[in-house]
């Protein structure tokens, strides 16, 4: 068996397992945990297009989740437009806002950029919280929006069971992972990486760093907004503070950093490492010790940054390399990788 065959076999196995999982899991609670795990992995992969490849630290991505959720929900509540269409409108709107935020901020240094994205996101959240309506669109201020239950309907993006949501988010995740993989191998991926590491040098070589960053930002905010619609349809209720707060923005960045920013598997590994922990400590410990899960979250973050500043993916990849070479009997490669 060659190394490539092994990789493909494992990938295939992962695909089969993830497609079969809902058949094995009876409990809606556990299925919900899995759905949220994929949801966060999806969000972080979308964030990674800017935060990982372009080498900046955006800390306001929850605003795009909010734009997605509000756009599709308002269009469906007030105009009867299917959330599937509203989702794309929300994505386009988020991409526009993303470019508007990115255009003036990408020339800033790291910490200023991070602070600026926070200010943008918080500013927009506070505005939405204070507005009962923008023109004809009802926002409901801090109370948020409630989506009435209409029963199983694909057109309305509403399902009585968790399984359809599971397959939708799984499909979205696979799509965005494939897209990331494709970009990382493309000219744009190299340009982004070059612009992140050495902007001046890349500029001198004729790469229009700003342009590629903006394209990445537009894609990232578009994809993030799609997740906003998903969240709205899954929960059927959302409000500005819960949906667009700094907590979500920071959690996305945390997952990426713990998993390994700028790597394809990073967001997935980060979500796998953190989400179950987060959910289980929340379920079992939050009554006795509120906040414990966030203490653990913070401690893990500090530890990973101290001992694996590039995240968990590089050491795991090395481990996998060693194991894979042993299985395929590639002694020469095994020696080389040591």
């Amino acid at each position, binding site marked *: 068996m060659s190394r490539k065959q092994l990789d493909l076999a494992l990938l295939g196995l992962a695909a089969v397992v993830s497609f079969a999982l809902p058949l094995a899991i009876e409990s809606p609670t556990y299925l919900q945990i899995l759905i949220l795990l994929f949801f966060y992995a999806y969000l972080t992969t979308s964030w990674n297009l800017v935060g990982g490849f372009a080498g900046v*630290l955006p800390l306001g991505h929850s605003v795009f989740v909010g734009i997605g959720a509000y756009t599709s929900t308002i269009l469906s509540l007030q105009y009867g437009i299917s959330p599937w269409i509203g989702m794309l409108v929300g994505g386009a709107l988020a991409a526009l806002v993303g470019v508007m935020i990115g255009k*003036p*901020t990408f020339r*800033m*240094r*790291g*910490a*200023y950029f*991070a*602070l*600026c994205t*926070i*200010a*943008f996101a*918080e*500013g927009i959240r*506070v*505005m939405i*919280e*204070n507005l009962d309506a923008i023109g004809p669109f009802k926002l409901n201020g801090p109370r948020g929006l409630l989506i009435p239950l209409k029963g199983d309907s694909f057109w309305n993006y509403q399902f009585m069971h968790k399984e359809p949501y599971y397959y939708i988010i799984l499909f979205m995740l696979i799509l965005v992972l494939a897209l990331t993989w494709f970009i990382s191998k493309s000219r744009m991926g190299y340009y982004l990486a070059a612009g992140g590491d050495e902007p001046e040098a890349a500029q001198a070589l004729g790469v229009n760093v700003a342009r590629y960053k903006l394209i990445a930002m537009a894609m990232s905010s578009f994809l993030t907004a799609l997740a906003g619609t998903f969240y709205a349809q899954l929960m059927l209720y959302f409000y500005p503070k819960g949906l667009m707060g700094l907590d979500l923005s*920071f959690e996305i*960045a*945390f997952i990426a*950093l713990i998993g390994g920013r700028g790597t394809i598997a990073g967001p997935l590994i980060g979500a796998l490492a953190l989400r179950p922990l987060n959910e289980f400590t929340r379920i079992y410990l939050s009554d006795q*010790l*509120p*906040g*414990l899960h*966030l*203490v653990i*979250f*913070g*401690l893990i*973050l*500090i530890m990973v*940054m*101290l001992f694996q*500043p590039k995240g968990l993916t590089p050491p795991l990849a090395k481990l996998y390399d060693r194991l894979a070479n042993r299985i395929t009997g590639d002694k020469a490669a095994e020696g080389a990788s040591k």
Partner: protein
Amino acid sequence: MTAVIQAVLNGTMMGSMYGLTALGLTLIFGVMKVVNFAHGSLLMVGMFAAYWLIKLTGMHPYFALFIVPPFLFFFGYFMQDLVIKPVFKAEQQVREPLTVIIVTTGVWYVLDNLALMLFGAEYRTVRTAISGTSFMLGEVIVSIPKFSGFVVAVATAVGLALFMKKTRTGKALQATSLDREAANLMGIDQYRIYNLAFGIGTAIAGIAGCVIIPFYYVYPSVGVVFDIRAFIIVVLGGLGSIKGAMLGGIIVGLIESVFSQYITSTWTEAIIYAIFLVILFVKPSGFFGHKQDW
């Protein structure tokens, strides 16, 4: 008219609290070029420390000024030494390190939620000898705890400025902030200076905690209120500038208090963000910042 004067006065006094919070942040940024996201949490630690001291011993709140800041100095000193320094070292080549920001964010999560675990989410106030007292200045009411806080804030800023100008340590801090390699070559131990900067910045958060507690409630995430404003203030005043921090703080306090006469306080928050963004785009180095820092 009286209402406006009253608003200006209250805004100035509250703004000096924001300025005091921003002072520590700006000092740390000035020396290390690190935005300390945990700064608000350190203020929260200072507030809780003052709260328990006053609550348990019944001491005068300003007596806590001699206990809480020194305690927080060591807290910050060792936090930088044990947690921040190793990451900083690994990122030494980067001019504006991002991993360090993330580590301070981790510290923020840990501190805020430890406080939540220990003390619960409720808002607490402690009655002190001066809580709720005031005097009249013509027709306006001046709250004594707020006014004393203002005096302490100004004194702290002046003291810090003098310390930076007159003492050897202060000069070493300045030298490191201007050029860390050159300072290193002159025999200044860069990392000891960082420990000191962090310690002093945290101690100032402790001072703020002591003077805020007689008139403000404390709860685990109270730091965020001051944190977001402190970020805005240091950008407004120029990162690294002491007078910029105080002036910026008072401006933000004034905006808040004057605008809240006419619109709801949540809209005031939106206005502050808007002003922040305008400054970032128009004059990112702030009033007293250096162009090269940006």
